[in-house]
């Protein structure tokens, strides 16, 4: 098992390396980093001097290492648009995105697994078929459309929930949270629903497919042949085997949600890093784009690694290498 984890960690490191290199390339070669740092009257000489001072004439590997070194220390450069350090901007908006992502993920996991199990067990029931048809619509509905339609229904027509923003926030040990205020909770509902619905549909279909596969296996057939009750077969056996691969997928979802948050944050004007990223793309603010890419890369690699370890922990077959005993 140790060898397995080391192998996965190395793969993750490789991905990080590539991502870092892409981010570095973006920083260095796209757009003009000097543009925002020089006053208008700067001469050619000033330019050359600045290039030298910033180390832009050093060999590429050196620049790359410096870039990585800076990144590890938390220095991600300065935004082209407003001159504020990127690290500061991201740190300020990260809690908003993370809270949204976690709430959505929980929603997607709970309902996705529940509905997936139900539609697998009651395979031919009318309700299960209705849910599956609805799920097809869910997959065809783009996230932003779900958000907009929800706003229309609940904010405009019914007036129950706010249509944008995060509501009031309170500071908890340095973390600015909106989950502790009433208006914050109300503001969270629609965005979490929007962000989580697509994921929930995916999880549901996955769980259903996985469970149907499991229900066809020999050991389930054998369990039935031993006269175990349907409940024991479905929940004592099938569910456990279904969840093992599903749990890892859900872990991966968390990473995906953080990226999909871009759309949801735009729809609801949610002040998170996703909205920051979109604005950066619109205004070609390279430092923010590159940093976002780097952070997302780190997040994904970390989540992938955790999921791999989790998989090994949960599935006993991966723990023991060799069977014992003879006939």
């Amino acid at each position, binding site marked *: 098992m140790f060898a397995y984890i080391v192998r996965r960690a190395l793969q993750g490191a490789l991905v990080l390396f590539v991502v870092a290199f892409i981010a570095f390339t973006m920083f260095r070669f796209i757009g003009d980093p000097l543009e925002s740092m020089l006053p208008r009257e700067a001469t050619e000489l000033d330019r050359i001097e600045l290039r030298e001072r910033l180390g832009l004439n050093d060999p590429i590997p050196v620049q790359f290492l410096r870039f990585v070194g800076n990144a590890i220390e938390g220095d991600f450069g300065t935004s082209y648009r407003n001159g504020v350090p990127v690290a500061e901007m991201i740190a300020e908006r990260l809690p908003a995105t993370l809270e949204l992502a976690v709430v959505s993920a929980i929603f997607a996991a709970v309902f996705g697994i529940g509905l997936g199990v139900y539609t697998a067990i009651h395979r031919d029931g009318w309700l299960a078929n209705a849910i599956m048809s609805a799920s097809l619509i869910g997959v065809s509905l783009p996230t932003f459309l779900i958000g907009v339609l929800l706003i229309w229904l609940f904010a405009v027509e019914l007036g129950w929930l706010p249509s944008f923003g995060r509501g009031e926030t309170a500071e908890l040990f340095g973390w600015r949270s909106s989950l502790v205020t009433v208006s914050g909770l109300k503001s969270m509902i629609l965005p979490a629903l929007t962000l989580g619905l697509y994921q929930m549909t995916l999880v549901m279909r996955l769980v259903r497919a996985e469970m149907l596969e499991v229900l066809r*296996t*020999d*050991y*389930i*057939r*054998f*369990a*039935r*042949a*031993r*006269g*175990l*009750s349907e409940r*024991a077969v479905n929940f*004592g*056996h099938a569910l*456990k*085997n279904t969840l*093992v691969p599903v749990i890892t997928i859900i872990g991966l979802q968390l990473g995906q949600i953080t990226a999909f948050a871009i759309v949801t944050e735009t729809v609801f004007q949610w002040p998170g890093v996703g909205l920051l990223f979109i604005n950066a793309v619109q205004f070609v603010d390279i430092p923010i784009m590159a940093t976002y890419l780097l952070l997302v890369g780190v997040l994904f690699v970390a989540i992938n690694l955790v999921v791999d370890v989790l998989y090994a922990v949960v*599935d*006993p*077959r991966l723990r*023991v290498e060799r*069977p*014992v*005993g*003879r*006939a």
Partner: protein
Amino acid sequence: MSDPPLLEVEELIVEIPTRRGTLRPVDGVSFTIGRGEILGVVGESGAGKSITGAAIIGLLERPIRIGGGRVTLGGTRLDTLGEPELRRVRGARIGTIFQDPSTSLNPLKRVGDQLAETALAHLDISRGEARDRALRALVDVGIPAAAERLDAWPHEFSGGMRQRVVIALALIGEPELVIADEPTTALDVSVQAQILALLRRLCTERGVGVMLVTHDMGVIAETTDRVAVLYAGRVAEVGPTRRVLTEALHPYTRGLMGSTPDASPERDARERLAQIPGSMPGLTALPPGCAFHPRCPEAMTRCATDRPHPAVRGDTRVWCWLHPPDEPPAERRP
């Protein structure tokens, strides 16, 4: 037989409705199993052996279904039971053993738990007692250091050990009958004999009847008391094993005997194994009349038009026009 049989299968029919018509993988199969007796059910792949076993315990997957005949276990009719009652029969009155031990056990559940839950499902005992029974079951099937192995995972056992666990699972509910579907096919040759011997010993000790499904004539010869030979979903003949093997009545059975390698010194080692020309017809291409007649060296005109009626010859029952029945056949009951 003086005692009433434990299991009676009469004219069992299993159907599969398909786009191209209804297929019958089992078409009028009849045999009986007595208490403490081992009946072998032998035939080629696709002859309907496994489906017969599945039909008896009601484990046919939609759209496969029983299309006729009756199955009676110790006086209770099984083919008309609903699912809840069938569940009480499975495990408690009929135990099952499947072919592949590496896929029969849930890889994510400890062996002791799988045994205990089966015991709890059928016997009115406490959790602690169930665990004791699980331990005893492991000891009975010959697992060494059973107490430590109780909490082991299935993949920690070798193939033969796993099949022993499967046998333990089949017997822990104290059934009257065990259906063993190719129990040794997936095992090493060296292990096969041990497993068969174990099965035989346990069942004879407890007076449990066994339906042993296999395609291996060697297993039949070694382990069974009586044997039923299946061909294309129908029975060719049923009778005591020794008799059927040495004085087969049905030409198909004779063909099977001829194709078994004979290691006795009288046989010339250079003689080629006799082969039955052609192959068993698929379900969609069954010939009219006797299913075997196109390949039968002794086929008569009647064989091509009429399906043979069963005839009794001593303690053997045979379905072949070479041995016509003495009286008119009993009416086929619904």
